[in-house]
């Protein structure tokens, strides 16, 4: 009967899993989608993603979602709708999407009073479709011809900053800010104290993202630090970078053989959140290509030159003025190439020093055999 001990008196634990935030980075690169249009047109993909979002929201009552479009000339939020700076100081961004559609010149889709649709789903869908249509409208030919690729790096940073903001809103240690304090104390339940589990899902269609190596890598490391898994569903093209992203952050990497089955891939492989993944065996990229892209021509290289100060990678030794392009320190790669790794002369130097100064140092660690004749 005396089973009172430390274990029983813990705080009432929350029964459910913590709320999870899904941030989808949708690669809307028009060039790449044009290639895919025969198997999976963008509209179908978007419809599938909307169903997936609904499934995610249905999976947990406190689950939230953010959608970011990584377009050819800019990266922007599709949901929550970007709010113009307003007097509303807190987290109202996601609340405002209905009004947002109002002042737009023509509300393309409106939250209809559709009795066949669960209202929260309808609200989000409408916001996404509206913002998406706006984005497509704003894209003109100049934007299209400017680049064949997409601004994935920017989109990823947007996603990370959004996740960070949401996490702060959910975290219990928000005692410094008044607004946040009242938010945390608004309810007596403990559930808001469980922090948010976030993840990023990149729906990628563009190949060749090497020109964004640096921003991507920075984002990946930030995600790694924040323990945000980056999931990749690669519908077309192949990039080393994204594979590395999912590998480094512990996310899922999938390259469906049949893109038209997108929804099933999403539902099975990407719906489980970090909490559920503890009990599941998730697919991951088999062999990850760890090659890096050079900083000068954004080419993926096997062997390159590395700045000794800032570790920037270059594919060829001809640097302007022999200065590192990233940090500006003097870097004469040409000389490194001219002089073949001259081991023998250096060895000799070492030998002399070793023998002359201190014979008791572990001289044996230097190439063996050669030091003994000196003593003898």
């Amino acid at each position: 009967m005396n089973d009172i001990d430390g274990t029983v008196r813990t705080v009432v634990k929350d029964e459910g899993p913590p709320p999870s935030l899904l941030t989808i980075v949708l690669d809307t690169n028009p060039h790449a989608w044009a290639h895919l249009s025969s198997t999976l047109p963008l509209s179908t993909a978007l419809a599938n993603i909307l169903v997936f979002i609904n499934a995610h929201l249905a999976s947990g009552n406190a689950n939230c979602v953010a959608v970011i479009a990584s377009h050819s000339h800019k990266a922007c939020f599709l949901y929550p709708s970007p709010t113009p700076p307003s007097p509303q100081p807190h987290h109202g961004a996601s609340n405002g999407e209905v009004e947002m559609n109002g002042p737009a010149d023509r509300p393309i889709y409106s939250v209809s009073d559709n009795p066949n649709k669960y209202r929260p789903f309808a609200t989000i869908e409408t916001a996404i479709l509206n913002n998406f249509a706006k984005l497509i409208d704003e894209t003109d030919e100049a934007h299209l011809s400017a680049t064949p690729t997409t601004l994935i790096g920017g989109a990823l940073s947007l996603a990370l900053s959004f996740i960070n903001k949401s996490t702060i809103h959910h975290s219990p240690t928000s005692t410094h800010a008044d607004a946040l304090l009242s938010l945390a104390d608004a309810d007596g339940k403990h559930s808001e104290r469980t922090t948010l589990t976030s993840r990023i899902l990149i729906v990628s269609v563009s190949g060749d993202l090497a020109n964004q190596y640096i921003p991507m890598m920075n984002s990946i490391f930030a995600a790694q630090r924040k323990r945000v898994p980056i999931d990749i569903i690669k519908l077309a093209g192949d990039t080393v970078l994204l594979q590395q992203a999912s590998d480094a952050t512990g996310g899922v990497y999938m390259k469906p053989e049949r893109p038209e089955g997108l929804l099933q891939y999403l539902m099975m492989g990407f719906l489980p959140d970090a909490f559920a993944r503890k009990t599941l065996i998730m697919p991951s990229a088999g062999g990850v290509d760890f090659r890096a892209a050079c900083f000068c021509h954004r080419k993926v290289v096997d062997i390159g030159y590395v700045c000794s100060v800032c570790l920037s990678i270059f594919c060829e030794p001809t640097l302007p003025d022999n200065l590192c392009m990233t940090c500006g320190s003097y870097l004469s790669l040409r000389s490194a190439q001219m002089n073949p790794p001259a081991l023998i002369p250096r060895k000799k130097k070492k030998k002399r020093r070793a023998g002359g100064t201190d014979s008791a140092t572990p001289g044996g660690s230097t190439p063996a055999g050669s030091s003994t004749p000196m003593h003898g």
Partner: protein
Amino acid sequence: MSASSSQALEYLEQLPVQTHRKLYEQPSTVLAIFRCMLPQMAKTIVMAMLYMPTPFPAGGLDAWFRPEATKVKKEALYILEKLHITVLTQDASRQSACSLYSGFAKSLRQALEGSGSHRSFGVPSNKPEPNKVSIQFLDEYAQRQWENILFYMVGSTVGFGSSVGQEVGKGTKSLLEAGDFVRMSHGKMNITRTGFSFVLQDTNAQVWSLLIEYLRHASQLGMSETDVLNFLFMLGSLELGQDYSTDTLSPTQKQMLEDLTAFGIVYRSSKTSSTFYPTRLAVTLTSDSGALSTTTDPLATGGASGPGLRSGRDATATGFIIVETNYRLYAYTSSLLQIAVLSLFTHLTTRFPNLVSGKLTRASISRAVRTGISSDQIISYLSAHCHSQMQKTTPFLPETVTDQIRLWEMEGERVVTSNGYLMKEFPSEKEYRDVVRYAEDVGVLVWKDDANRRFFINGIEQIQGFLKREAEKRKQRG
């Protein structure tokens, strides 16, 4: 799955398969069941199978789960099976496979896609309403109605006189009695053990308890159970502040509206009005009782701002209790209901305009325990309502106090009981061990005695099924 919806789940589980099938015709019901009844892993399994063209082979399902998570998987599959959501089939090569019940899958797809023409998510009234009511009004209305009910239950027990409960309708009163929340004895109404646990729950759980009682009652009144359930689940998916038309409702559901108005779950401007407003009590039926649904999550409330019912109700009360290590208790409240609830287990001594103070004593706690309140209920009530200053420490309540409350309870309760079945006389050690392991996996094992090959379980259906399957297997083999 939240604690509040688990009672609804229990109720659902015991329904027969026909009722389930009938329920699953309604997309809003399916979505609500999916959203708040199923545990996380069950949701994951359902979603994985939802758009799968072929049944999910059992082997594949096993391979999908990590080996150490078998228990979670079994629990999830068990619930799905019990609710008749999944169907186990065997193909020609005797490989068993799992698939979703087609009606469920169809409705869930419709709910996610927003397709079909089932109109199950409520038909908003298009008529311009001259005297449209505000969300704030609805909140106040719901709060008033609900607190009246609670106060009716608690008030007379703690001796606030006979004046309480005049605002509560007759139907509600008889429902409370039928559910054994209160009991009339010698012309005086007394709250029961179930009633206590009812009062100490959070609002959402209270609403569900009352509604489940209502459901049990409903079939006696000749109302169709599925109709009632469908309506309740639909209410949970409506939007606060929007008026909905009553035209598409069935006669049963129209009849329900009146009762629900009495509970404060819906609001109608008059009994003959052709529209109704769901209140916050209704729209949070299928969302977590957790904080996010009312404050930070714009989805659950459909973008409605303003204080939630909880925060509305606790406007004075959000974290209003301070408990010190010397068992003294201070509560910043002037609400009679809260004072009444506190006085159930506290020795209250002083009352100021905005504060009551008192002490948790051995006498007050054992009095509460005698009337049927458990220490866990007291502790969870205190920690759910403790002041923001106290929430800075973990756990919120001083450990000396929580331990002492438990010890006081145990002085009165010297025995722990659990109902169930004793399984014994296993022919072989192996069979015994298999069954015990299964019982442990599904979480029904209470006690076991390996030496004498017997154990005690608190649920027999699964074990029966398991034994039957084992017997069949043996037959096939032998």
